[in-house]
């Protein structure tokens, strides 16, 4: 399970584009494409800046009217899913 103190970053072979507030991710090795929500797209953008998951949740809590506990839960679930898909990796 992902840790809030961890820094995740997109794999070098992953291309990411925001289209109409949603994220489109292409994985190089498979050619598969993944669509993520506007919040997911924002999390990926923030991951590009090499911030901890906790920092990302803090930023999101200022941008979305969602309970912090929900954001924490969703961010961890999202990070877990992206790790399992090979989209992001743990830095260091």
């Amino acid at each position, binding site marked *: 399970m992902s840790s809030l103190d961890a820094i995740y970053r997109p794999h*070098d*072979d992953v*291309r990411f*584009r925001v*289209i*109409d507030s*949603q*994220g*489109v991710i*292409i994985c*190089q*090795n*498979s*050619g*598969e*494409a*993944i*669509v993520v929500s506007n919040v997911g797209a924002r999390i990926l953008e923030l991951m590009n800046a090499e911030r901890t998951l906790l920092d990302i949740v803090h930023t999101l809590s200022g941008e979305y009217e969602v309970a912090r506990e929900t954001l924490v839960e969703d961010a961890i679930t999202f990070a877990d899913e992206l790790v399992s898909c090979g989209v992001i990796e743990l830095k260091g």
Partner: protein
Amino acid sequence: MSFGEQFLSNGPEPLLSLTQGWGEASRDIHLPFGTCRFDNLTESQHRALDTLDVRDAPLDRAHVDIDVRSADPGAFRNIAWDGLEYELEFDYRPDRVSWTGDGFLVELETGDGPRACRLWTRVNEPAHFAGVAQNVLRIVAAYRLLDIGGVLLHSAAVAPNEETLLFYGTSGAGKSTIAASALALGLTVLSDDLNALLPAADGFVVASVPFTGDLDHVPDRLAPSPLAALYQIRQAAENATTQLQASQAVAGLAVCSPFVNIDPHRQAGLLDVLTQLAARVPPEKLLFTKPVDFWEGVI
């Protein structure tokens, strides 16, 4: 695994220095982005290109010069494929792409303008060389189309009138099924596997390429025609069409854009082209039943 490990006995380097051609013959193949010229062919290899069912283009300057070079058979591993399909190996660089398969190695320069391509092969036998040529042209087409703002799309193209409908999907989605249904109705069908999309002043046009799919239908060769509709296909219990969000449309198109969608140096450009395509001709999701009976709803 390093590049070429599966197909090349000693990697690509020993081949790259070989400059001897096979013969004296040349052959032009006309594709939507321009002409591909195979140089230094034997008569046997020249005849093999007949099987691609392409028409000779005027002898203008080739957009891609394919320099065919002779290689020692020992440079390639002997693998008993027995007609089985195999996966090519690729090496991606910012200014070129290389790939290798059974008995051949290709290096293609990429970017704007005419580009050079070198093909090292041990293959002279016509049927085998035709297969090699297909493995060259399909990938050259994908890269050159992207260079000019177009895309090669896994799709079935049906032209019921002056415009073309494109049904795209991955392997097994039903492209050949739809193409066969269209043929049965007397409609014009381009390829049931790969079709070329090129940017035009007021949208995109569809052009045929000489690549067939499961249907083995020789593509009808037409002048490029306007793209009227894009359908992301999926078999279902009932016919239905639904709008796709732009992000879903681009993602679906990316999956169906072979070769360039797994090249890290081309993915950003591919997303640019597909975003423009989805904006100009918004794709719909088409759920369809077998046997196909949706034509009244889309024509």
